[in-house]
């Protein structure tokens, strides 16, 4: 039976988890590791006045940027849950493009490559600021000469003590599922009285 067809017809409750982190850190790989479909991508374009005149045309310059959000889904038939994993670009300033991207998310995994730790600062700050539960997952690249321990990473990132840091291989389904389970455990422990945000209005939406 095609996995794309729901073999147990009946409603599922959709839930979502955000996978964030810097460029090339393995976000799409992680989404694909648990998705039952090839990861899909949806693109948004935005333009920015680049301030100043284009030297060739004399016209005020504009820059167009395409920002992609990829995602996969996994149906948990027994639980009647359809889990969505959204792999976000590493810059939270773009996330307003998908208005409700983080609204009611179960939490976020911030994937890191210990060679480029600073790439994770912005997403960490974002989730911390919003009180959205998150964990850090060190994607173990075989060619990484430095093998930092989770403690060392937690220290360098100035993480609050309760934020878990785990290792994973984002290519591997079991490993990724363990990361996601660690996140949900964390959410259940630390999001005691989660009240859905009253306003669906996202930050950053131009008024």
């Amino acid at each position, binding site marked *: 039976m095609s996995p794309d067809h729901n073999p147990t017809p009946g409603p599922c409750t959709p839930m979502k988890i955000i996978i964030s982190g810097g460029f090339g850190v393995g976000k799409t790989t992680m989404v694909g590791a648990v998705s039952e479909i090839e990861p899909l991508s949806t693109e948004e374009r935005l333009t920015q006045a680049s301030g100043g005149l284009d030297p060739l045309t004399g016209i005020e310059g504009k820059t167009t940027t395409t920002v992609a959000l990829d995602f996969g889904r996994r149906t948990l038939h*027994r639980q009647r849950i359809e889990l969505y994993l959204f792999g976000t670009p590493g810059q939270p300033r773009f996330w307003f493009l998908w208005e409700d991207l983080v609204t009611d998310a179960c939490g976020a995994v911030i994937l890191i490559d210990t060679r480029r730790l600073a790439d994770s600062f912005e997403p960490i700050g974002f989730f*911390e600021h919003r009180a959205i539960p998150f964990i850090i997952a060190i994607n173990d690249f075989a060619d990484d000469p430095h093998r930092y321990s989770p403690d060392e990473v937690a220290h360098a990132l100035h993480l609050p003590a309760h934020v878990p840091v785990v290792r994973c291989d984002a290519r591997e389904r079991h490993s990724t599922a363990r990361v996601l389970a660690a996140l949900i455990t964390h959410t259940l422990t630390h999001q005691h009285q989660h009240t859905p945000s009253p306003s669906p209005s996202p930050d*950053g939406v131009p008024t």
Partner: protein
Amino acid sequence: MATDTPATPATPDVPGRDPRHPFGGTTPPAPRPPWDAPWASYPVEQVRPFALIGGRTRPRHPIQLITLLSANNPADQAADDTFGGAPGNAGGGAGRGAAGDAGGEVAAGVLVQGRVPEADLVVGLCRERPRSLAEIAARIGLPVQAAKIIVSDLLDAGALVVPPPLPEDRDRRQLLEALLTGLEAMSDVA
């Protein structure tokens, strides 16, 4: 040379994150806060469906990225009736495929007067299984905001429905616990 570095420094050799910086910036300060950034002119007018649907940018239904949508009654002709399924209506003619296939097409056709072929595509996708808005947008190759408006119109027209919540009506905590159970089963190497 005095540039030897220990094989494993005590901490990664990057500037540490300053947690007092509201957005986790480095020093020198990170870019301005995301929600303050100058990326403001979303070029909706350049996106074909927005032009096609009269420049509207706000849907009438609160549809989120993971809102699931189903085709309405794919197995019967209810939608035909809704949209005047009398002989000779546009969707009931020669183009009709399998029985029961026409409801959404009629709805979509009436809805956007044939100007947005993606509408038919959307109904077809949602007939196969419930699809999230995100998946619909990705599969028809349109930005989410554009797909949202098509979906919203299809909801108005009765071609799509949002499946009702599960009867057992689990609360947030129960859902998270169920999700955890499912993920733990998936992480068992068996």
